[in-house]
């Protein structure tokens, strides 16, 4: 056993110098009580995580956005096309990273992607001169696809249904958005509106009738206050 004359303490392990004050340790009679003898892994070589790819991609997208703004300003065409580049980049940064993460709930992911893509469509429609195709056709189509996709997921993996039921219900409710838009005169295609609303209604009914208690308990846990 070794001891430090300055700190008045004994030191276990293979130290030659006192870990507290740095002075050379002197040999000493052990105190005579049992010590646990802990060892720790040598972590001196461990380096902090540094994700080069991520940083490179971030740099390239910032560069791309910056260059397109610059070109757009220097070569005026009367059309702000650089906004499309920026919106697309924001969309990619918002959607791709969650996709690469391990999925906990695919239905939740689907709902998130549907909503984000709907926003992208509205933004694009707005940038290239509002003609309303996003609210009339793109959003209803996306919602229909979402409702059908969640239904298909439930059919193919019935054991996961309790986890998905909340999102099926929410997606069903979102199916009525085009109807609301139609009443405010934003949406023009009554056919698309009715198809989406019908699918949404079906989805909500299925969850309410078949989900009964599971839906209720899921609501209670998500909305407890």
């Amino acid at each position, binding site marked *: 056993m070794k001891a430090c004359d300055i700190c008045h303490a004994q030191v*276990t392990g293979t130290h030659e110098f006192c870990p*507290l004050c740095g002075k050379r340790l002197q040999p000493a009679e052990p105190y005579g*009580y*049992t010590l646990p003898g802990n*060892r720790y892994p040598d972590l001196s070589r461990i380096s902090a995580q540094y994700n080069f790819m991520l940083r490179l991609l971030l740099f390239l997208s910032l560069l791309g956005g910056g260059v397109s703004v610059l070109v757009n300003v220097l070569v005026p065409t009367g059309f702000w096309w650089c906004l499309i580049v920026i919106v697309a980049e924001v969309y990619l940064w918002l959607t791709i990273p969650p996709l690469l993460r391990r999925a906990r709930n695919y239905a939740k992911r689907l709902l998130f992607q549907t909503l984000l893509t709907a926003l992208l469509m509205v933004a694009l429609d707005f940038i290239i001169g509002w003609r309303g195709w996003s609210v009339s056709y793109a959003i209803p189509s996306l919602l229909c696809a979402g409702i059908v996709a969640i239904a298909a997921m439930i059919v193919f993996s019935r054991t996961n249904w309790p986890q998905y039921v909340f999102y099926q219900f929410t997606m069903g409710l979102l199916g009525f958005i085009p109807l609301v838009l139609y009443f405010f005169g934003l949406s023009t295609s009554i056919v698309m509106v009715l198809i989406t609303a019908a699918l949404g209604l079906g989805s909500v009914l299925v969850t309410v009738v078949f989900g009964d208690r599971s839906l209720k308990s899921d609501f209670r846990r998500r909305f407890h*206050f």
Partner: protein
Amino acid sequence: MAKRIDEQNHWHRLDNTANIFPVTTSKNESNVFRLSMTLIAPVAPELLQQALEMMLPRFPGFAVLLRRGAFWFYLNENNAVPTIREESDYPCRAINPAQNNDFLFRVTYYDKRINVEIFHVLTDGTGGVQFLRALCCQYLMLAYPTRFTEEEKAKHWYEQHVAETNDGYVSNYRPTKKTSFSIGKGYRIRGERLLLDTLSVVHTYIPLQPLLALCRGKGVTITQYVTACIAWGVYTTQLRKRPSKHPLNMYLPINLRKLFGTNTALNFFSNIYISLDMQADDLHFNEILAEVKKQFEEKISRGNMLEKISYTVGSGYNPAVRFVPLPLKNLALRIMFKQGAKSSSLAFSNVGDMSLPAPFAQYVTGASFLLSCVPREPIKFAACSANGLFTLSFASMLRSQEIQQAIVQKMAEDGLEVTIETNGVDYESV
């Protein structure tokens, strides 16, 4: 008939204190503590894994994952299996649920030591000790199958009952008029930092009996004595050189289970601040010890603690808080927490006795307890005891070991036989 989701999938609310942890946790602020038990022989990983799988169902409060609700977080039953790993990082790193099947705790081993690292959302030190004890007992029964009687093996050593996931704060709540518990800004310990995420760990071992005798002689408890030693260490190395108008505020968590006769598996602690004004440059240790003792006796009372917990529970009941959507609530909590955190200079927690029951005690050589550091409190102190050995552990982000040295010197000066052990981050390596 198909099993109902209600029976399959339990969930419970976070206890009143736990609500703060998911909000304030980040890579730099992990809110993770580590409890370790050192055994007489190297740990066999496959047996440890088996032991964990066997005892986890007895701890429903640990087999959970964290979810977001519209108004509050909640803990949902997690039916996956956690995996043990060999220790390969610094202690008390933030827990990334995605890396361990969404569990909020981590079981690691190294050589003879079993570590359990727990995110504070799950429980406090007392709850964590029960979990570690159960794991160690189960492991020892697997590792030495012939040394235990059938009766001992059949017994469930330590378990949680579902009823214990009741919130002790809420069940002891009494409406209160008190509106604030904020104290002023505290002295901030400063010093050059270690590189990146490096954490220096120093354990100091002291035989329990002489320590008890010393404290009895001074008429104080062990916690009071160690608190005074810590204050002395900071005073002699930092405050004497650089006097501050801010007092040294030492944050001490207080276990409320005995005080309120409530046995819960969730968090059930409150805190006190031992606040010492240290502007004078000729303070004596005995003056500090007397002041620490006085504040302990004043501040730890059922009435004081009741007011404190009732205040926080009461604010959670406030409709203006209750029905605010979670993201907004989190934002407000974060700001309040940032303000509150400025009061604390350092934290010291004594989890008490961690010994295993009689048939298992002989296979254990020691235990230790570690808290995670945060930039605002770059050094934290944690203590426990097992098998007649008191262990005070320092976790530090600071390059200099002067505070640790001053504390060790002080205790050795008082006649205690101190032995130190480090994780290798010290003078030789930095």
